[in-house]
């Protein structure tokens, strides 16, 4: 499967997809960390994808999403935004509302973090 297909697959099948530099256990960029921390505060079940192993991943992701920078957060296939937006939505409480609307009441029960490596 091409990167592009794998990226689309993660976006469409994950409750919350986070494309970031590094992984949740080893974050490689301050902005990726800001997005991850905001998602954690909101209790989001995050599926993280590291874009660093191959520059091609980043290019194909931006071609799909029309968003030029990393990180990128998707909820149920919809682009929510980058670090600034996710942080802002978390501070106003809108992120929690959005997650609840998209994933249902008990969305934060599992609080699981999954890391997906693209090949």
């Amino acid at each position, binding site marked *: 499967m091409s990167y592009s297909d794998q990226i689309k697959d993660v976006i469409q099948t994950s409750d919350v997809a986070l494309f970031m530099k590094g992984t949740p256990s080893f974050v490689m960029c301050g*902005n990726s960390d800001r997005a991850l921390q905001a998602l954690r505060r909101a209790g989001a079940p995050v599926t993280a994808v590291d874009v660093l192993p191959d520059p091609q991943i980043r290019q194909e992701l931006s071609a799909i999403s*029309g*968003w*030029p*920078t990393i990180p990128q957060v998707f909820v149920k296939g919809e*682009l*929510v*935004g*980058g*670090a*600034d*937006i996710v942080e*802002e*939505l978390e501070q106003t409480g809108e992120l929690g509302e959005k997650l609840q609307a998209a994933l249902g009441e008990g969305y934060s029960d599992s609080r699981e973090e999954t890391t997906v490596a693209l090949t």
Partner: protein
Amino acid sequence: MRVYQFRHIRWRRKCSAVLLRRAYAAGYHRLVSTQPLRDLLEQAFPDATELDVIDRTGGGDHFQVVVTAPSLGGLSLVEQHRRVYEALATPLADGTIHELRIKTKGTP
């Protein structure tokens, strides 16, 4: 005569160093680095009621931009940020902007 010349040069060097340091302390280098981005944003958002570009590190490549404009009203945050990315497409593509933080607001 030679001695005087040298003194003169040394004095001038000292002066320009002092002026440079003062200009740096006053933050002029930050204005210089942010003006091209400010120009691009002013072109894209002529109706902006608030428009600011901050050089976050003083290195001329990490920026925070703030735009409040009626033309952003009714748009989602994703769409608002996209307008800013479009306005700054050239400096984003050529590497002038290494990192960009965006704060937007649409007013009715």
